[in-house]
């Protein structure tokens, strides 16, 4: 055994020069990422920060001093003292020529291509070439409108063979479903033998596709990218809480795309989560109802207060049910009202779906805010306790949030027989239909709020579209109900609820509300690539 002193730890950062600017980056970074840190954008098609390096598009060639040939900057790892040039004549010409090669067989059917406006090829063309085609030979014709699987259509002519989609299937979904076939200018993307492009993460291939080769059947031909506005939010599909962008226009959400967050979802999200926006337009409760008939807010809230008057005299006979499907703010508001009423608290949630869990992004718990409700009302009863209370008749009034009340048929029947059942719900479904009084509340895309994912991370959602009809944010519905029952519970904004909540819920003390985010027009946001 040597007794020599340990050699000094090797430096973990590397300093290099890119276009005359000094960049200090962690060891092992590639030149393309290092250039980004000093504001130098190098064009690329096949490189994606969330995928392995293929270096097959050659669009990111740069000149590295003391290196006889141009190097693909996505594959070139930085070295100490390295000097990189991206604006010199040689590498600029090389990238321009690579772009011209890429465009040789590209159909340039931008008017009917769904990617137009957020297309990496368009973006690089404007930056690099911006010249008319010099090719006068016919373009190679390839299959169009190829059905690759349940969600995706391929236009092989538009494909520039970057292989990003193949790598998404292999590395994100872990399923080898896409391959290259043929060679040269007849090379094209196809499904692997005996396979379809059908995996829980398949639509990420559409996001990463730098051109319009892969399009989502769900979004195809509905909206142009430049017409949409983007608002950041959080997927409500499960307890992972993938960060998403809502792309909306005309008070309607048209698609969800993942938003990069290395701590939660990386660059990806699952297909099931993407389709959750459809539910925002189906069976919505848009007006308050009393006894199944539409009523004004005033009338509905007064009817609720009248019915609650007698049960509230015996505090233990009123059940207030929080929902793991609703936001922190709505749940906290209702919990505070329950405390003012001295009512019993319960929590409802959708049952776990074990088949979903895959060790990646999808988990069995399909409730976006189970952890949040647990933090707000730690000692709340579960559904079994609620069921027991309803069955024994100990509970004479039930006020519940959401439309998920997975209890037994007997309990549901007993619930219907109760004189006072008040629902605060986004959708007119299940127990909401049976509730004597239903108050319409805004869904997750329609109001500001937050949810807490399985790791206890609180994430903000921002209002993007208007709530239907007379629906108001859940906390506001609670405040109206509180006023009618003379309970001292009131807020004027979601931020007020947040301040109140972070002061009351110990683990969240001091958590900042964060800045307000306005919708960003994709028209000016450039390519999402």
């Amino acid at each position, binding site marked *: 055994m040597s007794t020599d002193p340990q050699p000094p730890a090797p430096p973990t950062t590397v300093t290099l020069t890119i276009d005359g600017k000094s960049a200090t980056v962690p060891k092992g970074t590639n030149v393309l990422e290092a250039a980004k840190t000093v504001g130098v954008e190098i064009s690329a098609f096949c490189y994606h920060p969330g995928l392995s390096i293929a270096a097959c598009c050659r669009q990111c060639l740069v000149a590295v001093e003391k290196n006889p040939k141009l190097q693909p900057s996505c594959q070139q790892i930085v070295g100490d003292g390295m000097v990189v040039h991206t604006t010199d004549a040689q590498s600029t010409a090389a990238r321009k020529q690579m772009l011209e090669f890429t465009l040789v067989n590209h159909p340039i059917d*931008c*008017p*009917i291509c769904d990617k137009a406006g957020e297309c990496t090829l368009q973006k690089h063309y404007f930056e690099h070439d911006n010249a008319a085609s010099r090719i006068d030979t016919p373009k190679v014709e390839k299959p*169009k*409108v190829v059905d690759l699987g349940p969600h995706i259509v391929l236009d092989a002519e538009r494909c520039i063979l970057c292989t990003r989609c193949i790598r998404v299937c292999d590395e994100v979904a872990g399923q080898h479903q896409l391959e290259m076939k043929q060679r040269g200018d007849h090379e094209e993307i196809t499904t692997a033998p005996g396979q379809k492009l059908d995996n829980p993460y398949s639509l990420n291939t559409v996001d990463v596709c730098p051109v319009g080769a892969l399009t989502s059947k769900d979004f*195809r*031909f509905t909206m*142009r990218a*430049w*017409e949409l506005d983007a608002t950041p939010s959080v997927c409500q599909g499960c307890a992972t809480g993938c960060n998403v962008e809502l792309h909306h226009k005309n008070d309607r959400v048209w698609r969800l795309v993942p938003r990069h967050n290395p701590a939660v979802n990386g660059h990806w999200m699952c297909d099931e989560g993407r389709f959750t926006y459809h539910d925002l337009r189906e069976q919505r409760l848009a007006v308050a109802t009393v006894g199944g008939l539409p009523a004004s807010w005033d009338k509905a809230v007064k009817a609720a207060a009248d019915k609650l008057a007698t049960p509230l005299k015996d505090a233990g006979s009123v059940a207030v049910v929080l929902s793991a499907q609703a936001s922190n703010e709505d749940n906290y508001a209702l919990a505070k009202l329950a405390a003012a009423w001295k009512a019993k608290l319960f929590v409802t949630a959708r049952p776990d779906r074990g088949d979903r869990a895959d060790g990646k992004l999808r988990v069995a718990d399909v409730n976006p805010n189970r952890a949040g409700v647990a933090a707000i009302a730690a000692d709340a009863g579960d559904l079994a306790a609620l069921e027991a209370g309803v069955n024994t008749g100990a509970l004479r009034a039930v006020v519940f949030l959401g439309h998920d009340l997975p209890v037994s048929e007997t309990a549901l029947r007993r619930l219907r027989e109760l004189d006072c059942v008040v629902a605060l719900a986004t959708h007119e479904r299940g127990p909401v239909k049976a509730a004597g009084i239903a108050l319409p509340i805004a869904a997750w895309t329609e109001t500001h709020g937050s949810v807490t994912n399985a790791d206890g991370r609180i994430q903000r959602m921002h209002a993007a579209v208007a709530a239907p009809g007379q629906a108001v944010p859940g906390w506001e519905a609670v405040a109206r109900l509180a006023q009618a029952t003379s309970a001292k519970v009131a807020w004027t904004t979601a931020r007020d609820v947040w301040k109140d909540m972070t002061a009351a819920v110990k683990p969240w003390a001091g958590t900042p509300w964060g800045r307000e985010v306005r919708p960003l027009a994709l028209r000016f946001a450039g390519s999402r690539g």
Partner: protein
Amino acid sequence: MASHAHDDHEPTTTGPKVLATSTVSPKVRTIAVVRPSEQETSYLAATKAGLGITLRHFAKNLFGRRRTVDQLNKGEHPVPTTAFQKALSVVSPINEIETIQYPEEKAVYPERFRGLHRLMQRDDGQVRCVACMCCPTVCPAHCITIIPEQTDDNGIEKRPAVFEIDELRCVVCGLCVEACPCDAIRMDSGTHAKPVEERADAVMTKDKLIAVSKDNGKNPTSIATQGGVGPNWREGR
């Protein structure tokens, strides 16, 4: 050395007569106000001049030459015949009456007149529009509504299910025609939007926009190639 006019500008000595100047601020002055004379305030001279103009128009409208709508459309002028007309033509060579009895008579619009929109058709009768959304994007009046749909056509997969232009909102700027990559929308129909009794009637639907060509004797097809190489570029695939 050149000097500018204002360089050697002398302070003006004309202007209202100054009666007094403020001691606190010399710019504040009392001036003598010049009132119009009684002759001027009677407006007799002006009335006389105005009556002269009216009489001249009266005489011109009674005895002057009238340019017919045919002459107008051909760019011709009527020949002066009477002594009065000859005298008038000395004053101005185009001193003539240009009143057109609309709607019995109609002037032909110039060739590049931007008028009612029309939608062009392909050789097979399908609408040329591929619902690319360039025209509603560029439209400053937001008068174009397009809802796209998918077609089975292998070459051009997209077409408008709904294509509507609200002619009341349209500002006739022609940017939609400029923006169209397919020569699908034109404003060369040679006519203008029809008067309507209800606002909804001013909304031109896809069928109405296609029919504009036929109604105004225009060729509904274009010589521009669509999708690359000729109108049937995907034939035989």
